[in-house]
């Protein structure tokens, strides 16, 4: 099988009369970490929901790995993309039970989990550094730990495309860094990770590509170097911003 890819051809979506995605065309091919940036209400979360078929576009075509998204069966889709939405609800399942739920698309309704499933769960928990929390109830761990548990849950789904809605929101800086690095690493392992991010620095440091959205359209896309410039950001965010270089790696850093 070829590498993961997503393709949007002039996709539009509106909630009622409110057009939230306007004629967006995008194409990403192969493993990489793509950040979706833009002010509130730019359509970032809607874009992710379209990519997981939670929403169906009124116009245009979305393809995942070359195939139109509407042709996927529900389970098949679950084996192709994994979504981590922003959801504050947590019931007192154990961490390992939550991660195991990621195996749902592969496990029959009444089939017991196999040793192979538990191995994958363990691997994913190690990768996201939550293996020591395996036996803890999810509501008793910190927000940063929870987010990493959700990431582990998405990883055991073993999909070639990962969709994340603000995975670093409300996290301490060390967790932001570890999630940024992990997604960068996943990009190198031929996984296409697409994350809505608020933090421009994080996007600049870890993303291979960024999409800057504005009022439902793609304003600019490309490497963080090209997109994160003072004049572009000024137009999108409406305030003057200074872009300087990171002292160590030269990536663009944004300051008011």
């Amino acid at each position, binding site marked *: 099988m070829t590498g993961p890819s997503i393709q949007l051809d002039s996709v539009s979506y509106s909630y009622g009369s409110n057009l939230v995605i306007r004629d967006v065309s995008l194409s990403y091919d192969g493993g990489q970490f793509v950040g979706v940036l833009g002010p509130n209400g730019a359509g970032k979360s809607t874009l992710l*929901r379209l990519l997981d078929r939670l929403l169906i576009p009124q116009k245009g075509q979305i393809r995942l790995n070359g195939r139109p998204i509407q042709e996927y069966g*529900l389970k098949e889709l679950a*084996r192709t*993309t994994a*979504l981590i939405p922003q959801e504050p609800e947590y019931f*007192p*399942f154990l961490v390992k039970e939550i991660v195991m*739920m990621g195996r*749902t698309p592969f496990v029959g309704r009444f089939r017991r989990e196999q040793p192979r499933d538990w191995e994958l769960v363990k691997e994913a928990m190690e990768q996201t550094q939550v293996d020591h929390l395996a036996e803890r109830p999810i509501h008793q761990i910190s927000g940063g730990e929870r987010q990493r548990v959700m990431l582990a849950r998405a990883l055991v*789904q073993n999909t070639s495309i990962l969709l994340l809605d603000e995975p670093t929101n409300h996290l301490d800086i060390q967790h932001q860094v570890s999630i940024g690095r992990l997604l960068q690493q996943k990009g190198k392992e031929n996984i296409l990770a697409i994350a809505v991010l608020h933090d421009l620095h994080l996007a600049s440091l870890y993303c291979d590509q960024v999409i800057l959205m504005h009022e439902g359209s793609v304003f600019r896309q490309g490497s963080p170097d090209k997109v994160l410039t003072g004049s572009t950001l000024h137009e999108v965010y409406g305030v003057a911003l200074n872009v300087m270089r990171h002292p160590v790696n030269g990536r663009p850093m944004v300051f008011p």
Partner: protein
Amino acid sequence: MKRQLAAHPVIFLICLLVVTGTGALTMGSVDVPPPVVGRILLRQLPLLEPWIQSDWTAAQATILLQIRLPRVLLAGAIGGGLAVAGVIFQGLLRNPLADPYIIGVSSGASLGAAIALIFLIPMGYMGFFVLPACAFVGALMSAYMVYRLGRIHGHIQPLQLLLAGVAIASVLTAIVSFLMVLRVQNLQDVYLWLMGSLSGRSWRHFYTASPYILGGFVASFWLARDLNILLLGEETAHSLGVDVQRLQKKALVLGSLLAAAAVSVSGVIGFVGLMVPHGVRLVVGPDHRKLLPLSFLSGAIFLIAADTAARTILSPVELPVGIITALAGGPFFLYLLRRSTT
């Protein structure tokens, strides 16, 4: 390993159920001591019959076999059915405050059953089939209304849904009261129906309700895993390949079936579906694969005990069992409400 751990509470509850059931059979205005209860029951088994000497009065046997046994079994089935319905609705709404009584499904069933009792059965329709069917239609209609009112932009809003349920429940209960006051001569019957009672229930009622309850209970295992995943949220469940809307519809139908079967023979017994699943969840956690069987057993035990209390506390006067469950359940609901908002 985990499976063995899960088996222990099941065995424990089955033992407790047998003890409670036997205890309930011994209690009442005519004294039937536990050993006699055991021997009368064993003598009903075909192979054991010649071995057991009959040293009891005919009255004792009749009271046990024709009055107490069907009532205890019926109380067990209804308690189990309401508890499983509660588990299903709570999982569906991801809210521990939901149960068939509070979200109006029981009232819908009550209206359907009342229409059958007042208009259809006296006209000679087969009560055996018509009664639960009418209750089911009523339950489904109210469940569907509540579901539609509680859904905003394609997502269930739990608070909205609870409030819609409360409103619909009061309207439907008012209609039931109105119909009954118009058509039923005996106001006490109306009262027993509205509060929920097992007074005077016999084998006929047991055979009417229990197939649906047992069937619904077994079918609920089909939803257990998907209900677990739904607890992670609708979007996550979708992303894991669960057809959320279909699951929600199946759960509504199944929960309505269970509640309707219970209501069709007992009237509206409240709070069992609220308290029992919640108590079980506190002990074993939120996994529906454990919650469903354990709640069924606990619900059965609870309602057998409550009904025994209802018929013995003020003997020879019988209280509606709904008074006992409401006395226990109302404060419990308030406790949950306080806990979830602070």
